[in-house]
């Protein structure tokens, strides 16, 4: 292995880190407020798809914005069902995932070939030429967002309100905080970040959209949230670890000599996720009211 190969691996890892970190940080905000959105996988899938449509209409920035908007809309619907309508969060999440699987497969057929749609090169987000090769600008976004959210959660009043809604909604309510509204905005924000991550995958990274483009990343992001214990900075680290192993899998596949069958290489990110999650779980403490709808007595 020479240095060029290693740099290539690092480049893939950084690119693979972006969707997981963004999604995980969004979910950290959602979970801090007391909602548990397992529909992230579906949000990634749908926004990857609508991102392509947006990019074809108005360029890459429009694609990313549309993906973000649709992600936020799904997060909003999820939150309405699970705050004002007292829904079952797991079931809503599963519903979003099923719906997304159908919608994207259906939409791809409408766009032409079933199962696959390439993004024209001229509407893909440009990559910066750096010493390490072409890098997507969104890597910078993925590096900065966790810092920003960390500051927001630790040092602002709004961050404290968010925590109160997740830890002790009754007390928050008594203090004059509208718990349901806080959760609504938190889940919308989480959905928006997942939407950005999804649109990034198709418009700025892979350059095509398939019906399983998300490939479990929504759930890997959930695992990253568990790993981080709701600390955005650790989510950045976790995202990098998972991104690294995904990059490693991609990179091993491109090697001319095939040391391991590609199917086993493809399993690697999922196995690593399992190992990491089962390794750290004991020390993690989640918000007390996570997953429970808030009902006023």
């Amino acid at each position, binding site marked *: 292995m020479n240095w060029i190969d290693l740099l290539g691996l690092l480049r893939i890892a950084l690119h693979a880190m972006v969707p997981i970190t963004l999604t995980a940080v969004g979910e950290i905000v959602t979970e801090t407020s007391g909602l548990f959105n*397992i529909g992230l996988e*579906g949000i990634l899938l749908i926004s990857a798809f609508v991102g392509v449509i947006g990019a074809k209409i108005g360029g890459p920035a429009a694609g990313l914005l549309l993906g973000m908007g649709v992600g936020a809309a799904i997060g909003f619907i999820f939150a309405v*069902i*699970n705050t004002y*309508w*007292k*829904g*079952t*969060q*797991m*079931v*809503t999440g*599963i*519903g*979003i*995932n*099923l*719906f*997304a*699987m*159908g*919608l994207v*497969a*259906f939409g791809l*057929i*409408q766009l032409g070939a*079933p199962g696959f749609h390439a993004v024209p090169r001229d509407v893909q987000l440009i990559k910066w030429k750096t010493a390490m090769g072409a890098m997507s600008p969104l890597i910078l976004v993925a590096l900065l967002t966790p810092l920003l959210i960390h500051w927001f959660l630790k040092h602002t009043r709004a961050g404290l309100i968010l925590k109160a809604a997740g830890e002790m909604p009754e007390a928050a309510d008594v203090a004059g905080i509208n718990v349901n509204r806080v959760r609504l905005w938190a889940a919308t924000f989480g959905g928006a970040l997942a939407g950005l991550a999804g649109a990034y995958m198709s418009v700025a990274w892979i350059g095509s959209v398939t019906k399983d483009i998300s*490939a*479990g990343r929504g*759930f890997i992001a*959930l*695992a990253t949230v*568990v790993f981080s214990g709701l600390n955005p900075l650790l989510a950045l680290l976790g995202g990098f670890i998972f991104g690294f192993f995904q990059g490693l899998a991609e990179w091993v596949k491109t090697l001319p000599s095939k040391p391991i*069958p590609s*199917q*086993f290489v*493809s*399993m690697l990110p*999922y*196995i690593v*996720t*399992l190992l990491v*999650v*089962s390794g750290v*779980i*004991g020390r993690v403490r989640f918000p007390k009211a996570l997953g429970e709808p808030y009902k006023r007595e």
Partner: protein
Amino acid sequence: MSENDVKVQSKLLRGARRTLTGLHPALESVLAALIGLLIGALLMYIWGYNPWKAYWALLQGAYSGGYEWASTLSRATPLILTALTFSVCVRAGMFNIGAEGQMFMGAMAAICIALFKLPVGLHLLVGLLFAAVAGALWSVVPAVLKVTRGVSEVISTIMFNWIARWLALYIAIYILVDPSRAEKTLTIPVTARFPILMRGTDFSYSFLLSVFVALVLYFVLWHTTMGYEVRAAGLNPTAARYGGIRNKRTMIVSFLLGGVTAGLAGAAIVMGMPPSYAAFGGGAFPELTNIGFDGMAVAMVGRNHPIGILLAAVLFGGLNAGGRVMQFYGSNPVPLEMVRIVMGAIVLAMSIPELIRLFPMAKAHGQRLIERLRRRPATKEGSA
């Protein structure tokens, strides 16, 4: 909100509750199904299809005659089994979304019986046994991780689904591959196939297997101590523990039961689905993919009750069978994927508890809005 409005709203809610007690769960499932179909119709309309024609084709293709019913029940067969996987774990208070992977492993294990010869009947039973054991084994690790390390089963089972998918692909391409046709696995020998129930259709005795398994699970869950413990642990784990129920054991038991049924679902597909009687690794398993996920929708609409699941599976089997007709229906061919959109929408609607209450709520909101609109012009006139 004024005092009067509160009164009106609570009256509406009480009325809705009173009339619907008893009928409630089944009615809600029907309502959710209708909402799902409505959302599907809306999307079809947006995309330029004619929803009425499409649903008419679907209905015709699913329930209009003997052949159509056979096709519907044949599609319902594996869905019943994967739905049972999900519902057993929900009854125990867990969300096992690993039916997909356990089913893949069951199917691969069932195909293993193509490697040796046995007499008719015994061969089939051995195949089912292989599949059940493989499904159970694939569910053991998430169960143990949940019990010993507290790993969320949602994450671990999804990871196992992806691992299973790649492992099954490897097995299908390198180990159980058909030497003459590289895109498919070995074919299940005639001695191990489920006999066809209705000539000229793909409806086989595997349907009876899934009904049998559903009835057995009903008996186990509602008429044995073990089932009682599983349900008690699901309803209130703390109380169950004080009552002397070993929660960890019931968790593992329910996961194993789920694994067995999911494995059998894989076997029902490869051993009971003409004409291929094999899995197609070349096309990334079109006949197996998503049966596990669709099963979750079936379980929720069936209210996680074996009998409800049988009924819900007839609906979803019909959607799948009718969807196949719908996608080739003359001037208005709607892709089969629309069916999964409808399923997702149904599950979304199912996640709203007491769905029925949304209607009085919407009515109250609407009335308030109308009142406000009426009042506004009036005040304007007054000021002028």
